[in-house]
């Protein structure tokens, strides 16, 4: 009985609505109006929420399996950059293979004021002291190490006085 009454009610309503029509252009503008209302709904959210949603949509638009190596690659690049920058700013160590006696190299220079010094000849003594001992030297000159190609850049001796 109730079901019968419901059907009658629905029929009555359909008859009443039978002459109601949407305004002109309603169906043509339907999709546009739908998007406008959708954007209006989105813009009611706070900006940070919008950004998160956009980012999430972007991430999920890619294949997740290919993205797993990205953090590892970024980490490796950062480590390499750190090492390179350390090497660049590191102070270079002086070469210690060709050893010259610093005391003698600093020797003569100005003889104008010192023509009466005791020693008439300044000499560079090679075999007294080196920065490395022979054992160390032997260890650093293994087979295959190129020899020291000799051409001095300073004389092996100087005259310090006009003594004769």
């Amino acid at each position, binding site marked *: 009985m109730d079901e019968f009454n419901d059907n009658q009610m629905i029929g009555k309503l359909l008859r009443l609505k039978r002459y109601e029509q949407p305004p002109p252009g309603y169906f043509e503008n339907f999709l546009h109006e739908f998007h406008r209302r959708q954007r209006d709904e989105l813009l009611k959210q706070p900006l940070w929420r919008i950004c998160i949603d956009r980012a999430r949509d972007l991430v999920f638009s890619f294949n997740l399996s290919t993205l797993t190596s990205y953090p590892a690659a970024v980490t490796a690049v950062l480590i390499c950059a750190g090492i390179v920058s350390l090497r660049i700013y590191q102070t270079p160590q002086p070469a210690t293979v060709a050893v010259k006696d610093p005391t003698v190299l600093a020797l003569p220079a100005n003889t104008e004021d010192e023509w009466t010094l005791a020693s008439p*000849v300044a000499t560079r003594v090679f075999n007294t002291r080196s920065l490395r001992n022979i054992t160390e030297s032997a260890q650093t000159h293994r087979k295959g*190490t190129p020899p020291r190609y000799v051409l001095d850049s300073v004389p092996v001796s100087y005259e310090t006085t006009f003594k004769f």
Partner: protein
Amino acid sequence: MRRLSSSRSATGFPLVATFASLAAVASLFAQHIPESPAAFSREVKDVFDRCAKAVVKIEATDQHGELSGTGFFIDPTGTLYTAYSVGGEADSVMVEFKGKKYPARQLLADLRSGVAMLKVDLPSPSLPIGSSEQLEIATPVVTIGYPLDLAETPSFGMIAGFDRKCFGGYFPTKHLRVNLPPQRGEGGAPLLNLKGEVVGILLYSFESNSCYALPIEAAEKIRSDYVRFGEPRYGWIGTNVQEATSPVEGSRALTTEVMKDTPAAESGLKSGDIVLQIGRTKVHEPEDILEASFFLTAGDAVPITVMRGNEKITFQIQADLHPASQTRLAAPPPLNRAIPLNLQSAPERTP
């Protein structure tokens, strides 16, 4: 009249011929410098072809490891010159000659001049000794060396100067500054004129395209001492010199000190004397003393002329052994004897 003219022509011809002969001889002795770039190239190639066979690579070991340098034969018995830094402090010296390596022994190593003399027991070609005194600024020169691990390599340049002072100190004697590009491994290489004669020994690089060479006369002085005494014998007389405020007879070399018990004191030289001449070397500045002093030989008498007041005095002074002679003699030969010749085959003379 006719007889007179024929007589004139007869005497004129020998005169012209004599002048022509003199001119030809003079041209032979004149410094030979080619006139075009192509001629230069041929001359350098010719010098290289003739002299390279007497230039050797020297490999040795010192306390810092292995080293490599250059040397050259100066007589047919295998005697060779090299730099002190190459053969002066090294052990187990090997000379690479004609593709083979031969052990070499050290005859002497002279710290003052910066050269060492080695000996290989085999007949060898040798370079003729020239004279650096004939060199002038811009005289072309050639060197042949073993740069790095490469084969013998010629370098061409010119004399740029004759320096006594550089690197903040005084050389023991005048050095030749040469504008040619030296490379590592060429220490001890010969400096040659375009006749192929040795005029110097390459010792030090100077900036990037210059180097210093010891004049060959300085090395020959040491070799002469070695032949006579078995070691270099630098002489000294025992005085100090400094620059005078005003020149006397063209010299500013003022004697400021005469040391006790030295040849100078015994001969009567006094403080205040102005040194005018030592041997054949005229003295103008105190630096001239170094040049003259280097060539003094202990035991030899040398005339020294000084100005004392208005009086010019010449002393004959027998030089004593230089107290700072620091020469390491590895294999002293018998004194007062020349290096023995022991040739197994006929020597090859180069060029």
